[in-house]
């Protein structure tokens, strides 16, 4: 097909249970497209080709995701695909894109499972959670007085459970005493469990969950009146919505991420650094964006870079797409999001391993990087201030 623009399929969860994550993903892709087009498009051999995104809702359902991929590929004849928010949908989409040999980068799905399956045409800009989780635990163990005990709780969905398990592995390695490790059904009130945790007086409480569960978790801890020395959650807390929802109670919560709006990144592609990206996002969505959104924008950049490298024009044939895959495997680019480099073997096959995970903490309503040392913006506040005296 002859076109003077790149047609890009976006498969993500725009309805159903995962609508929040799906929409954050969409923002990331949108912002990238908007920025590219504002510059006139992707420059290939001196000519600029704008990008056009075509959406397909995966309805938080793998079957719909697979159908979406099939439609985008066979009907819309997209050049490549920006992938889903959730790992489940990604796992159903990946075989389809493999079959049609259409490259896909997901800016969000971070279950280790995807990469273990070694799908040839699927890439991801967010490092898998078992790759990032260890950093925060390490940061916490370096605080003074060093925490000795930890309780780890995870919600029973693929991502949250993996998060909890990565914290567990890291805690074991760091010789923290794990006083409790529990997986709970999604969406439940966790007060009784936290009452049990309270009686064990752990120094650290770590929680793997999703947006709404984060809010409930913080409120439940506060209601039973237990303030651990450190409360560690995950990336979701960097979203402005979470900070708004819990207000001052969000302060001093730790999180694991790979990127923040203040990350020290430098880039020649699109946004010069994280701050510029956050500003652009703030302008577009009234929200500085979190690392999922950033990862999605970075997915666009990865494609853009690879395309430029091989000089591929819109309406790619199969041979070009194969070349694009090879190019993606080889890229090593600094973006506003940090370094993007996909692993080409091992358990992280095609996941981005170029990033350095960060430990962050919410301080005065802002996200600050508190670890590892190289990236520190502010000293960690520790131990946490009692809920009561806030």
């Amino acid at each position: 097909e002859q076109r003077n623009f790149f047609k890009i399929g976006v498969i993500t969860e725009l309805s159903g249970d995962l609508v929040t994550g799906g929409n954050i993903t969409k923002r990331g892709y949108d912002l990238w497209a908007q920025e590219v087009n504002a510059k006139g498009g992707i420059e290939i051999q001196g000519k600029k080709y704008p990008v056009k995104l075509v959406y397909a809702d995966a309805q938080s359902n793998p079957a719909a995701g697979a159908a979406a991929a099939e439609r985008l590929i066979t009907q819309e004849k997209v050049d490549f695909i920006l992938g889903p928010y959730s790992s489940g949908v990604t796992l159903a989409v990946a075989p389809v894109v493999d079959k049609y040999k259409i490259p896909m980068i997901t800016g969000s799905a971070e279950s280790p499972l995807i990469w273990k399956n070694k799908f040839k045409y699927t890439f991801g800009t967010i490092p898998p959670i078992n790759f990032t989780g260890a950093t925060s635990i390490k940061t916490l163990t370096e605080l003074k007085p060093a925490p000795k005990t930890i309780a780890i709780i995870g919600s029973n969905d693929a991502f949250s459970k993996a998060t909890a398990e990565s914290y567990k592995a890291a805690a074991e390695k760091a010789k923290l005493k794990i006083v409790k490790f529990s997986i709970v059904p999604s969406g439940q009130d966790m007060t009784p469990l936290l009452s049990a945790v309270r009686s064990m007086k752990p120094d650290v409480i770590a929680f793997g969950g999703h947006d709404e569960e984060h809010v409930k978790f913080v409120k439940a801890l506060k209601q039973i009146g237990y303030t651990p020395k450190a409360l560690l959650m995950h990336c979701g807390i960097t979203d402005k919505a979470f900070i708004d929802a819990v207000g001052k109670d969000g302060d001093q919560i730790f999180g694991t991420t790979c990127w923040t709006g203040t990350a020290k990144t430098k880039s020649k592609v699109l946004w010069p650094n994280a701050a510029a990206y956050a500003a652009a996002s703030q302008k577009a969505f009234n929200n500085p964006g979190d690392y999922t959104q950033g990862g999605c924008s970075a997915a666009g950049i990865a494609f853009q870079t690879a395309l430029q490298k091989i000089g591929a024009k819109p309406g790619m044939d199969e041979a070009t797409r194969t070349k694009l895959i090879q190019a993606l495997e080889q890229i090593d680019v600094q973006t506003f999001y940090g370094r993007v480099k996909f692993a080409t073997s091992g358990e992280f096959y095609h996941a981005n391993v170029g990033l350095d995970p960060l430990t962050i903490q919410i301080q005065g309503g802002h996200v600050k990087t508190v670890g590892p040392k190289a990236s520190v913006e502010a000293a960690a506040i520790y131990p946490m201030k009692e809920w009561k005296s806030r």
Partner: protein
Amino acid sequence: MELLPQALTDGILLGGIYITIAIAFSLTYGVMHVIDFAVGEWIMFGAFTGYYLNKWTGLDPFLFLPVIFVLYFGVGYLIQPVIHRVLSGTKGNPFLMGLVFTFGLAIMFRGLALTAFGFYSNSIPSAFSEGSFDLEPLGLTVTIPTVRLVGLAYALAITLILHYLLKKTNFGLGVRALAQHKDAAGLMGVNSKRTGSYVYGIYVGISAMTGVLLGCILSIGAQMGNEYTIFAFFVVVLAGMGYLAGVPWAALLLGLVQSIFMIYFNPSHTLLAVFAILYIILLISPRGLFGKGV
């Protein structure tokens, strides 16, 4: 064992939340014989109304409860005739029709809410969300969060008011008569349309107030309804459908099962236990815990 007092307390307080979700729902089922799939959505709308009122006025959401009740009473009052029409149809299976109708409403409401309120989770701040009572002085390691205690008090108050309304007032007599035999109630002078509208209005009003409470205790979001619909069903079936007096016990049982299970067993099996218990109780006593459901 040292955790037991706290486990029981948590369970009872959680039960209080379930009472608030289920009590009015049970009332409408008893009177109108409709399983309202949109119960969670009424809760969700109430929660967002409380959230925005709080945001705009800065006043404590508990102050708005009466306003929210009146507002949603009106909404329920106006919608009831439609539901009545569905349920009194002579064609098809009215029970099923009512269920599918409200199922449609629930989907629509969720769509409307996502459009209007967005997809983020939120929380409603209240003065009550702050403190808690410690029973340490009494020699018990028990903490009672104020807001949950308020929730329990609200649940009990609503239960008592509904009980009084039903059992002690002439209106209640009419409602009960209507629940059992529509034509005969009409013959006794009960205005079935208006009484039905009042009941549905009361139900929607109470559910909306419950939403505010849940927003203060837990969280709110456009998709929150589904989960509460499930628990409303659970409690009402366990209590015996339409058997109001069974609701507090069923709700407390549910709260306690969850709490005990989370504390003493593998928390990840909590819901498995909850659903298995519901299932088993229904098999043993097909009309709920007390065998008094309709």
